[in-house]
Structure formats: structure tokens, C-alpha cells
């Protein structure tokens, strides 16, 4: 029990009793919360085992039809293999670029003082504040002139240099004690060396979060591919799944099958990457 400071406490006298009650209450809260949180996913799995016209009914049916053929059909009747491959390529490339350039730029914004820094940073954060659908068309025209539209590069260009990553990393760098960098400077390390040897290792939880969030965003992005990717060979999962909604005919069961399949890789990444979110400064041995 290390992070005792995280428990909500109001009355100090009942500490002993609370200690014994705590796991029960905590677990109960977690179980209720996770039921609420997993219900839609459960419904998604159920729907993926139904026929198209049985997905939406009144009242809702919480029993599946065991229509397993959807899981076969989606591989044979669609470009699922292509979609997964494209999505995977994009997720990896964009996440890599975003994390690398984002954390690099964040160092420049948080640890070095130079004229124009704050204005530039405000410009970054400012663009987060503009709704994308408002500048989508000017951007599309620009990308078309650069011969980027209808290529996977358009998606890379669109997402790899976002302000989100810079902002996130900057905030985390600010929690790293300044004395650490000072000590390193005195030891003769260059600024690039400090970033590489001190900041990067220390910000692992933040990098892990940024990696996951970027990965998920790319994986689930819908509007971006919708606007930029016309060629079916370039489609990502989200845009591909939409082909199951025709104008007159919606194959909801297949959409749900695809959604279930598309969630799995992220869940695996999350489970595997978890230890990085919960291993921070406290265990990397920094004592100041």
C-alpha cells in the first residue's frame, strides 16, 4: 500500500475500520463501473452474432443467434485484410512521428527560453480550438495541390504533427525537476543529450499515454479517411466498415463484427502497455 494519499477520506478516527472495509467498497465500485462500461461492448459482441435485421429490435434481445458466419463472411466478403493492413501501417507511422517530433518540440517549449516561444506555443494550442470541419475544405484543396490527397501520406501529414502531442509532452516535462537538467548541464551534457538521456526515460508514462492515445485516434479516425481516401485499396478499418451501410441496405451485424475485431488489437496494446502507465518516476529511482 504505497499511494495511500489517493484514498478519499473524511474522518480520521475510523481509519482502522476503513482499512478493512476499503477493499470491499473499492471492488464493489469497480465491478459496478465496469459493468456499465462494458455493456455496449457486450451488446456489440452479441450483435455480431446476429443476422442483419435482428440487430435492432424492440425490446432488445440480450441473447445471440450464434450466427458465427459473420466472422467468416467479413474476411471473405470484404477488404478486411487490406483495411487492417492500412490502419496498422498508419497507426504505427503516425504514432511514431507524433511521439518523436512531439516530445522533441515539447522540450524546446518547456525547457529552453527563446524569443517568440510563447506566441508560437499559443498558435499551436490555438489550432486545437478550430473545429476541423471548418477548415477541412481549404486543407483538402491544399493537400490536393501537394498531390497528397488519395494517398496514405495525406493521413500521415494530417495527424503526425498535431498540437496535442506537443502540449501533452510539454506539460509532463514541466513536472520533471529543473535541478536534474541543471546537474546534467554541469556534467557537460548538451540539450539534445538531456532530452535523450534524462527527459525521455523520465517521461515514459506520458510517452506511453501519448502512444496509446495517438494509436487509438488513428485507429478509430473516421472523418479524415472519409475525406482523403477514395481508393478502396487505401481504406482503413473505420471507413471500410461503413461500406456495410449501403444507401438502402445496412448490414449492421457485419459492422458490429468488424467493430469487435477492430477493438481487439487496441485492447491487447493496452493490456501489454499497461505497466508503462503505472511505472513512473517513483520506480525509476530518481531521488533528486
Amino acid at each position: 500500500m504505497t499511494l495511500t494519499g489517493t484514498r478519499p477520506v473524511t474522518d480520521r478516527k475510523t481509519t482502522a475500520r476503513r482499512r478493512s472495509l476499503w477493499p470491499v467498497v473499492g471492488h464493489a465500485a469497480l465491478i459496478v463501473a465496469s459493468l456499465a462500461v462494458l455493456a455496449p461492448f457486450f451488446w456489440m459482441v452479441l450483435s455480431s452474432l446476429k443476422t442483419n435485421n435482428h440487430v435492432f429490435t424492440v425490446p432488445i434481445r440480450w441473447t445471440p443467434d450464434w450466427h458465427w458466419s459473420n466472422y467468416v463472411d467479413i474476411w471473405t466478403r470484404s477488404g478486411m485484410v487490406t483495411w487492417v493492413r492500412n490502419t496498422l501501417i498508419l497507426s504505427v507511422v503516425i504514432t511514431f512521428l507524433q511521439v518523436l517530433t512531439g516530445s522533441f518540440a515539447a522540450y524546446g517549449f518547456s525547457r529552453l527560453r527563446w524569443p517568440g516561444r510563447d506566441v508560437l506555443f499559443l498558435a499551436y494550442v490555438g489550432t486545437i480550438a478550430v473545429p476541423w470541419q471548418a477548415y477541412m475544405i481549404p486543407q483538402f484543396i491544399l493537400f490536393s495541390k501537394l498531390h497528397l490527397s488519395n494517398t496514405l501520406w495525406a493521413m500521415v501529414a494530417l495527424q503526425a504533427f498535431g498540437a496535442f502531442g506537443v502540449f501533452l509532452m510539454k506539460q509532463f516535462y514541466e513536472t520533471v525537476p529543473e535541478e536534474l537538467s541543471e546537474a546534467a548541464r554541469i556534467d557537460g551534457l548538451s540539450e539534445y543529450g538531456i532530452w535523450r538521456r534524462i527527459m525521455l526515460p523520465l517521461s515514459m508514462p506520458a510517452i506511453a499515454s501519448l502512444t496509446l492515445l495517438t494509436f487509438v485516434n488513428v485507429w478509430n479516425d473516421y472523418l479524415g479517411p472519409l475525406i482523403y481516401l477514395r481508393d478502396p485499396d487505401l481504406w482503413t478499418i473505420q471507413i471500410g466498415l461503413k461500406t456495410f451501410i449501403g444507401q438502402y441496405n445496412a448490414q449492421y451485424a457485419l459492422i458490429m463484427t468488424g467493430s469487435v475485431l477492430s477493438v481487439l488489437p487496441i485492447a491487447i496494446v493496452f493490456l501489454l502497455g499497461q505497466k508503462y502507465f503505472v511505472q513512473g518516476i517513483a520506480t525509476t529511482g530518481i531521488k533528486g
Partner: protein
Amino acid sequence: MAASLRRRNALIGLSFVLPNFLGFALLTLVPVLALFYLSFTNWNVFGQADWTGLANLRRLAGDRSFWTALRNTLYFTGVHVPVTLVLSLALALLLNTRLRGVRFFRTAAFFPYITSIVAIAAVWNMMFSPETGPVNQLLGAVGVAGPPGWTNSRDWSMPSVIIVGVWRDLGFYMLLFLAGLQTIPRDLYEAATIDGAGAWQRFRHVTLPGLRPTTFFVTVVLTIGSLKVFDLILVLTNGGPGQSTLVLSQYIYQKGFVQNQFGYASAVSVVLFGICIAVTLVQFLVNRRRSA
């Protein structure tokens, strides 16, 4: 000497920022600047953009749908932000303990964020179904007479959207808080305990200050995200019933892509941008004063 050192620092600083900034400036900043220009024109995508000066802004002032959308956006943001902030922090604290099964729960809490939005809309709408939905059946069972119509009622549609919004975003912000909690050195807690601080005091005097950069980031991102809310509303209520959940982002989309008035839509975006920036600046100033 000082001058050359400053120049050197500036160069090093720029060298860090440049790789990201070049891509950002060309690919995002340029179109955004174009948007600002277009907000003073009557551009319809296909033709020339004619300069109309402040005509769009004047039209905005008298446009009742715009004011409705603005009101709804502020309503959504005003409730969604504090609730999400508090709950996601609480969840992060809960999931930062060593309860058994916590690894599984961390993943579970993140599921709403990765589940397809079509599924989210379908399930929540069904839960909220006025007559057959589980929510109202539960309320009926505990004796609530005349339960709300949720997404199918003018008064309850916005609360419904907020509930789903909080539910979906919890995992996302929980993750950021979880990462923030890791950066608080453990010896600070140990020292506080030795000094006789109770759990609440440790929370107030160690956890909260240690989380300040994270909290600031979460608040800014969450506020801007809420002011720009779009996809959730689109799939849940599509702005209805009536205009009860019409928000600014959706109004921008309607004006631009449905009604082909991109100049006017740009003007609405500039207003939304202005609101976001004003709120963000306030948050920056508050943050600076607190951390000073």
C-alpha cells in the same frame, strides 16, 4: 556574451521545435489562416470568395439558431467539463491503488473510448428508450412517476448527451491522470506521512500540487473538446428534438456542407475559436498564478 548566448539558446530552442513545427505550419496553420480570411467572404466552395467585410458577423448577431447553438454548447461544456474532470480523477486514484483485478479494470475503463461510436449510440439510445428502455424501467421500479423522455425529449436530450459524453471520455482522461500520478515522487508521500498528514491532507498537499501540470492539460483539452463536441451529438440526437441539442460544431457543418455557405460557416468557426481561446487564456493565467 549575453547576446550571443541568447542567440545560441534561441537556435537550440528552434531546432527542437522545428521538425514538428514545419509540418504543423504548412499542413494545419495555413488552412486555418485561410479559414480566417474566408470568414469575411461569401465563399460557397465552387465560386470566387468575395470580400463582404463584417457582413457575416452582423448576420450572426441576428441569427437565432446561432444563439441557440451557442447556448447549447455552453450548457454542454459547463456540465460536461467539471463532471468529467472530477470523475476521471477519482477513477484514476481508484485505479492507481493495488486492488486485485485493477489491471483488468484499467482496460475496461478505457473501453468506451475505443468502442465504435455507432455501437455507443445504439446502446445508449436503447437504454434511454422512453417506454422500453432499461433506465426508465428501473426508475419505474423504484417508484418514479413520469420518468424523463431522455433523448426523445426537449428538456432531457442535453443531459442524456452529457451522460454519454462523460461516460465515454472518462477512460481517456483517467489515463492522463494515471500518467500524471506516476510523476509524483513517492518519497513526498512518505515524508508527508512521517509529518503526520492524513490521507485527505496528503491528497490536498501532495497529490493535487503534483498533478497541477496534468490537471491544467486535461482542463484545457477537455474544455476545448467539449466546446467543439460534434460526433457524439451527431450519432445520438443529431441536434434534436427540435434544436435542443444543436451545438456550434454541428451548426458549422450544417451551414457549410449542407447549405453550402462556407463563408458564413467560417465566421461561426471564428466565433467558436474566439470562445475557446478566451477560455484557454483564462486557464493559462489562473495556472500561471497558482504555480507562481
